[in-house]
């Protein structure tokens, strides 16, 4: 895979308010760095993430989308991440089926105490996206003009 040194990926991270967003805060206060390509959007719960949002991000030019929520069993709303888990599993499987690179989407469970994990997860995800390069299969060409 050719790695374009000019390539600056756009990565959208949906983080649930109660665990993962706080995990990202902890990563920040612990000064655990991860690439600036990652931009976080706060949602109340991973179950708030509509597959439409994921596709929308790709449409508008994102190169990777990652969704972070509380660990299964620890959801602030008790069951939200269980639904998110099924939805995203099926969505990712469908994207794979359509021939979209699997590595562009990911779900990770990060608790409020896991600053280190948050940073590791983001570092790994970003390096994966660098490997995959620009998202050409799922974007709207008009946004790339």
């Amino acid at each position, binding site marked *: 895979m050719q790695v374009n040194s000019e390539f600056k990926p756009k990565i959208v991270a949906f983080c649930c308010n109660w665990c993962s967003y706080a995990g990202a805060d902890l990563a920040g206060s612990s000064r655990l760095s991860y690439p600036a390509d990652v931009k976080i959007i706060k949602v109340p719960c991973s179950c708030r993430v509509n597959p439409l949002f994921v596709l929308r991000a790709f449409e508008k030019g994102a190169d990777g989308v990652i969704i972070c929520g509380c660990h299964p069993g620890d959801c602030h709303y008790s069951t939200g991440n269980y639904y998110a888990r099924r939805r995203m*599993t099926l969505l990712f499987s469908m994207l794979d089926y359509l*021939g979209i690179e699997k590595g562009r989407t990911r779900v990770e469970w990060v608790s409020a105490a896991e600053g280190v994990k948050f940073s590791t997860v983001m570092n790994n995800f970003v390096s994966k996206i660098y490997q995959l390069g620009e998202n050409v299969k799922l974007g709207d060409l008009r946004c790339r003009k």
Partner: protein
Amino acid sequence: MQEVIKKRVKELFDNNTIVRAIGWENGEFFYDHTPAVFDSAADMDVFVYDNFCASNLSKYLINHCAPEGKTLVLLKPCDTYSFNQLLTEHRINKDNIYIIGIGCDGMVDIDKIRALGIKGITKITQNGDELVIDTMYGEKKCKKADVLLEKCLSCKGKKHMIYDELISENEDEMPQDASKRFDLVNELENMTSEERFAFWQNELSKCIRCNACRNICPACSCRKCVFDNSASGVASKANADSFEEKMFHIIRAFHVAGRCTDCGECTRVCPQGIPLHLLNRKFIKDINTLYGEYQAGETADQRGPLTDYTQQDVEPTFISDKEVK
């Protein structure tokens, strides 16, 4: 069969059990039957039931189950799944509906007969498992099994899931080999990611966004589709870029995931011959393997797999980290 049904429906009109009936009526040719609403026993004269009644009538009931008198509907076995799913979702009211479950031994695809090189067809009669085809150029024959509609190739069996009465001769016939149902999905899954992308790009780029797949689909019963709703922020009317048809078809498949009964109407009506059912069937296959066998519409009031969960469900990383082909 047609005459038995006609007689029975007329009886039900005559004894005031029903005030209207939904069935099929004769078209211009022998194969272009139109779904029709009959308002009286006399209307039923043009009723038809043969190898070309593929339309799934269950969705019409959304607009025809108002309380002023019962509506009769003729449902083939596969249509009853859609009916149950609509019941589950409170889109229809069984109290105002009278179902005659009618037998079916598969519906015929006129295009497949034409593809055999048979032209100028004027009439088709069935003789056992053989079709006798009268054409402008003499009589031709073919096996019915060779010219069935795509949706009939993975028949769920001849048993009706719900009915008030049955007019059927093959109710006990078992479904065909269910393992074949996912053959095409498997085939796609076994391709490389690039091949799959090329396949779908090629198919979906034909899409003209006529919305026939959506509007015929009994699961797509939204009063207003998000793609038609300018306030939703995702409305779109045409494929102005290769992305848009993907967005539309992925989201449509996702919205019906766990609700799609695999009735195959989407593929049947697509004017561009896009195998849309392969999207729905992929979700069905994944649901079956990941969350346990589930058939939408088998009974009413089932809890769909996407409104359910177990604590031990597989993680999405199961997909993301699967070996890349």
